């Protein structure tokens, strides 16, 4: 196998069991459990992992470069294609960043609609994570349950803006679409429908002996390491750091809702699982509060016909389902951004993989890739 200047080869040879040769195998980019086109080169001693190297870029579409040749409005749909399972969050982050650059505020009604849709999207993203994570660990059934329930969320998206996955739900300055008739009742019905379903998932997994054995003390990462690597989102919170941008730097309408930040204690895969399950419940709480008191009023702020932000730069980040999603936009005063840099949570979290799996077994690599909840569209952009 030729993989150029791999750091795996440059390392001193570690001592292997029985002084046998270490085995270098290639996992991906076509592999059922690497969640897309991630390629991981594994250095193994038997089943034990001595080191990993991620090779990314198989899904690189040059999203950041495309931005330099599009107007601010034209670039909006492109961000949906980064983390395609949490397109609404991507859109929210981008729209808010540009709004910040333009120094305008989305009206309260728009903010409420944004919160509801974003939290629904967080649920959808976590459901997809749960299904695939469980599938990687060998439980095939939860996948179908979560996809069944995620469908209900996608139906709401479809009714709201016509698209299911890459929604393009928000516009710079607010929302383009008014809520459809029966939006509130649809969401309320969904909340009632999904609460027992989350219990159902937990029933299948939380106390399942095999599940606990497979995830407890697997892929441990300490809070200090998380901070050092820049890991955010549920992974960081599972290590015991109470850091959630919805609370730390409230955006949209999040300061108006009462919700908790679930945190873990040990930072292993099981904790990350529990944190995400709790987050799903907290999302339900936020949606429940929001849907009951959507204020009336306009859904679009006064936005100039041609968006031409003053020269300057801005960094704005939101709490996407997978962690901190930030946009760094440099404007040169023209209609097109001079440079956009996206800080994708998946990309940053993926860097923790090597540290989390060193000394573990091959099966743990799969579990850890699952628990990091990466989407390759976002890693490669």
């Amino acid at each position, binding site marked *: 196998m030729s993989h150029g200047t791999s750091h795996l080869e440059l390392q001193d040879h570690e001592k292997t069991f029985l002084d046998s040769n270490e085995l270098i195998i290639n996992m991906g980019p076509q592999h059922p459990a690497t969640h897309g086109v991630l390629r991981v080169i594994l250095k193994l001693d038997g089943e034990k992992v001595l080191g990993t190297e991620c090779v990314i870029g198989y899904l690189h579409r040059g999203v950041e470069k495309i931005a330099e040749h599009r107007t601010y409005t034209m670039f909006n749909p492109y961000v949906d294609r980064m983390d395609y399972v949490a397109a609404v969050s991507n859109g929210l982050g981008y729209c808010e960043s540009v709004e910040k650059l333009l120094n305008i505020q989305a009206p309260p009604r728009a903010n409420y609609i944004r919160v509801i849709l974003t939290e629904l999207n967080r649920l959808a993203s976590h459901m997809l994570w749960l299904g695939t994570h*469980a*599938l*990687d*660990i060998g439980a095939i*059934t939860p996948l*179908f349950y979560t996809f069944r329930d995620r469908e209900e969320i996608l139906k709401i998206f479809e009714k709201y803006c016509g698209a299911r996955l890459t929604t393009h739900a928000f516009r710079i300055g607010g929302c383009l679409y008014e809520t459809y008739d029966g939006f509130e009742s649809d969401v309320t019905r969904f909340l009632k429908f999904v609460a027992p379903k989350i219990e159902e998932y937990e029933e299948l997994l939380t106390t*399942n002996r*095999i599940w606990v054995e*497979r995830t407890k003390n697997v892929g441990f990462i300490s809070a200090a390491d998380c901070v050092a690597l820049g890991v955010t989102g549920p992974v960081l919170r599972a290590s015991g750091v109470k850091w959630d941008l919805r609370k730390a730097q409230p955006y949209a309408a999040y300061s108006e809702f009462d919700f908790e930040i679930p945190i873990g204690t040990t930072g292993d895969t099981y904790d990350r699982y529990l944190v995400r399950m709790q987050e799903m419940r907290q999302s339900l709480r936020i949606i429940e509060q929001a849907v009951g008191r959507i204020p009336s009023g306009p859904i679009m702020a006064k936005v100039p016909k041609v968006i031409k932000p003053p020269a300057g730069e801005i960094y704005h980040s939101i709490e996407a389902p997978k962690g901190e999603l930030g946009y760094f936009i440099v404007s040169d005063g023209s209609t097109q951004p001079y440079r956009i840099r996206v800080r994708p949570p998946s990309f940053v979290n993926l860097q923790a993989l090597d540290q989390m799996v060193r000394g573990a077994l091959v099966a743990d690599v799969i579990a850890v890739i699952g628990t990091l909840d990466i989407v390759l569209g976002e890693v490669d952009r």
Partner: protein
Amino acid sequence: MLDYVTSYLKSSTTPGQAGDVLWSLIYILAIFAGLSVAVIAMNWLERKILAHMQVRLGPMRVGPHGLLQPIADAIKLLIKEDIAPTEADKWVFWMAPLLVVITAFTVFIVVPFGPTHAVTDMNIGVLFMLGVSSLSVLGVVMAGWASNSHYPLMGALRSSAQMVSYEIAMGLAVISAVLMTSLGSEDSGTLSMIGIVQAQASQETWFVFKFFPLGLIAFFIFAVAMVAETNRAPFDLPEAESELTAGFHTEYSGFRWSLFFLAEYSAMIAVSSIAVTLWLGGWLRPFSHWLSGDPWETVFSLFPGLSFLVLAAIAVFSTMRMPKHPYFKIQKIGLGVFASVLLLIGVVLFLPPVRDRVQDIFWFVAKVAAFMYLYIWYRGTFPRYRFDQLMKVGWKILLPMGIGVLILTAVSGIYF
């Protein structure tokens, strides 16, 4: 000719023991055909049952309710291009699936479907089954080695380690059941599969209930070990598709792959039939001592026919629920014909001479089928063990439990 047939029907030994070559061959062919049908049926059932557990429909397109799907798949596999990797060791690559499938089928010559319904009755029946079925490890290792690729090699290593370790726990559980055969008043211990069931008949209890809970624990050990032995979920590490793509048979395709598939399912049936024979009374009907006497005999002898009638009723119900659209006309007719075939079999099974003759086979098959359902259920429920955890379960839990049960069984055998 007729005399030959009737003389056989009255015989009380298996054709192998009687030295009857023709009837032995007929039995071998019948078992081979039956197994193939069972594997095909199992393929369909697994996909359907798993699908319904997972809120989906499973195969629906090929034939009514996907009934012809396994046949379509078989044809597809047969006409596929036969690919062997360039780097593979051709001879070993060719031999491996054959070895696996031959061992998987050979064990069935001692499986007793009834007191006389077996190809032969060996005095070392259980030993023969365990020995021959563990030869399949060799095929798996050969497949992994000959593929000359990393993933199959790791799959094969995992698989061989797993099968060898669980065989020990399995063997201990089997010994405690064999020990129980020597405890009846007129019995001496036996390893013969037929003898074991007859011991359960004469001791008036299935061994799973013997020395409660000792028999149950031994049965439990076997039931866990047999899932590991056949590489099924939650012990399906060798073919953990999320880790090793397809494990030892990654490089196999087409017909060779289907041989592995065939072997896996017939191995499942084989170990289930050992479990049924050793602990669940083999061909004995439930409550054969508690609910004895002529009326009860008659009631229980109706079960084979009744079960087919139930199946026929389900098929008829499904036929009536088929969409009215003319597009479904052929499927509707097909399902109707299937229902009437089931109905016909059911009615035939009610005829007194047939009824008495198939009783044993029915109860044996029903018990094995229950195990097959368990296999599917496990697959739909459990996540997969990690390799070290699997070894831990085998060596640190099941093995000590097996030794303990064996000692306690021996002690209780002496004192009770």
